[in-house]
């Protein structure tokens, strides 16, 4: 770690205070649209904060999710609210000061505790560096996510699937009328979509050696699909039935199949070292597809009707 100069400290201080102020403003906002824009700005600053915390992988994920998907998701959700709910005051103010006081106390306590943390964390970096050579990849983050602690990632993919099932348990498609798409939007979308796909592929490929990987790539790919959905492309029509469901489970299914195969050798998720790199790439490709389609389906907000189901 290099010497922290005064200017860096000032930058970090401004960033930290800015984040706190933003968080406060957005919680205080009575206007939901304003809160959404503030939340997008919060994501932006948060990505900068991850950069300053030396976590470019997380910064990439935050950029992909925060800048692209969250904003679009929240706006789409806002548009679905009846206008009555938007202007109504959100909650009564009574008793809130007690809650605020309690939260302030918790925050102060946490602040004290974090201050008393050891300066240099013991962590697992040394351990990871020692085993990186036999993990099949060169990016320590990817090694942890898909090899050392791949079991956690397998379960995390299931969490994503659960989230989608949660949304689907709420009911199916309601038709909405959309405005026709103008030439500017069409051109913009036609230009951006291939680029987004290209960048997703780049992030997926880069993940083995540099920050990037399945989650970031999946999020960018999902952004491409969201863009197409917004521009009125009838993706819903293509993404129905077994084909959609197969794409949704590609990642989890590959992971579970691999886990089953390794179990035949009596060791859950232990890859043979000479194939580890290839297996991780396979997992990443499948997971990227699943993550992208799941996020796009979550954006859609309902289960697309299959052809056999009545309207």
């Amino acid at each position: 770690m290099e010497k922290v100069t005064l200017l860096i400290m000032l930058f970090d201080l401004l960033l930290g205070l800015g984040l706190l102020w933003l968080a406060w403003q957005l919680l205080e906002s009575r206007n939901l649209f304003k809160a959404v824009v503030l939340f997008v700005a919060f994501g932006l600053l948060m990505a900068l904060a991850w950069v300053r915390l030396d976590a470019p992988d997380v910064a990439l994920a935050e950029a992909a999710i925060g800048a692209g998907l969250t904003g679009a998701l929240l706006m789409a959700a806002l548009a679905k609210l009846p206008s009555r709910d938007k202007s109504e005051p959100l909650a009564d103010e009574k008793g809130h000061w007690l809650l605020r006081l309690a939260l302030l106390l918790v925050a102060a306590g946490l602040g004290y505790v974090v201050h008393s943390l050891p300066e240099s964390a013991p962590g697992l970096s040394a351990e990871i560096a020692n085993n990186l050579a036999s993990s099949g990849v060169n990016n320590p983050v990817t090694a942890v996510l898909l090899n050392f602690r791949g079991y956690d990632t397998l379960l995390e993919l299931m969490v994503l699937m659960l989230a989608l099932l949660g949304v689907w348990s709420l009911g199916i498609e309601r038709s909405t009328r959309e405005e026709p798409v103008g030439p500017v939007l069409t051109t913009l979308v036609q230009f951006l979509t291939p680029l987004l796909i290209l960048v997703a592929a780049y992030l997926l490929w880069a993940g083995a050696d540099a920050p990037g990987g399945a989650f970031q790539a999946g999020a960018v790919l999902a952004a491409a699909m969201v863009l197409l959905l917004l521009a009125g492309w009838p993706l819903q029509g293509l993404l129905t039935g077994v084909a959609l469901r197969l794409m949704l489970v590609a990642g989890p299914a590959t992971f579970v199949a691999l886990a089953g195969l390794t179990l035949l050798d009596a060791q859950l998720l232990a890859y043979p070292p000479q194939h580890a790199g290839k297996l991780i790439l396979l997992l990443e490709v499948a997971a990227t597809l699943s993550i992208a389609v799941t996020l796009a389906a979550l954006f859609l907000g309902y289960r697309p009707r299959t052809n056999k189901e009545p309207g």
Partner: protein
Amino acid sequence: MVPSSEIPWGALLILLPLAAAILCFVWPKLAVVTGVVTMLLLTLAVGGFAWQLQREGLYQHAVGGWETPLGIGLYGDGLSLLMLAMTVLVGLAITLYARSYFNQKQARVFWPLWLLLLAALNALFLSADIFNLYITLEMVGLAAVALVALKGGRDALNGAMRYLLATLLGSLTYLLGVALLYHSYGTVDLVLLAERIDNSPVVWAALGLMGAGLLLKTALFPLHFWLPAAHASAPAPISALLSALLVKASFYIFLRLWLVLFAPLGGDVALLLGLLGAVAILWGSWQALRQTRLKLLVAYSTVAQIGYLFVAFPLAAAAGAMLWNGVSYLMLSHALAKAAMFLAAGNLLLFGGHDRIAELDRAVQRLPISTAAFALAGVSIMGVPPSGGFIGKWLLLEAAIEQGYWLLAAVMVVGGLLASAYIFKVVGYAFTRSTATPEPQSIPMGMEWAALLLAIASILLGFTAPWVFALLGIGDPFGGGAP
């Protein structure tokens, strides 16, 4: 042919339901068959796991071949086994019940969710890694939220939303604690943490956060506010698994953390937990007695019964492993009895089209199996011999009296009396004729027997204690052995 002792039962308990969930997600037509077959296979797997545990002792498996702290360790002892067995017993009944309960549209979502929930629970009970536990906890929570929302409509959505907020708050608070511990000790493995941990503000903050998050999910008074609405508004099989299994999952993590991390640090926390437990018993039982709706009554009864689990904490230091055996037994018998009660209540609701207690209208004659199931499960909830509930409560009561905790002992007795009062209130109305008699609906046999079999099991537990305690001792989860 692989010798059966080498079959990796532990890993199969997690992988089987995961694979099955994926299968019925992709092909909804196969959902029911897959669900039932998987449930039977899981029963077999738990049996195999028990046998393996008995022969070889503690189960430990380094996932991916990476030893801790770098990798994740699976870990199983007698307590894990008890929880797995509880899950599979309740799971069998719920599977049998759900087969006829859901319509085609709901089944599409129910089966993958239910199988994922089973996988998450099994993974949770086999984990000794506080971060991995967080993920399983998140899976369990999200699956439950989706299941609560399954019925659709305003009440279900409202219940699901409350549940979502409570469960997210709980797991994020827990995660914050995990982060603090990892930063301070460089590991998320429970066994390694126990070796490295010392008495510092960071540890207290971490344990406080993790504890608060878990207690919120376990719905210990006064953090129970979300439970009655969510548990009562869900469809019957969901209510059953929420009350029987889910609160036990977070309690199990709390107990593990307590046994290996909290307890050695000492402090008055145990007494506080005991007092909260005592208040929960009184408050929950009183509220249950006041309810006019059957499902809300059963839900408040859960709040009270959770209280019993916490009364044990101040007694544990002096009483040793036998007391924890009692707590584990109480967990198991409550799970069976409460699931039976919710399933029976679901039948009564479906039968009469409502669950107003005062209008149960001769349910004893018209729906005898379900009413019997409710009453039998009630016997276990009251803690009357020879039920499973009796064994657990007796061990607690004995310890409280021996150690001179008269107040706690008194609360437990009063709780039992209040429980009898609210159970008899329901049974009483089930005998009498009411004014309004709506057209009754027919109830499939499977749904009635699912409730009755569970209730019978909760009574039979009263005779199996020595055998279960012997299994519980594997790997010495409670330390110190019998007093």
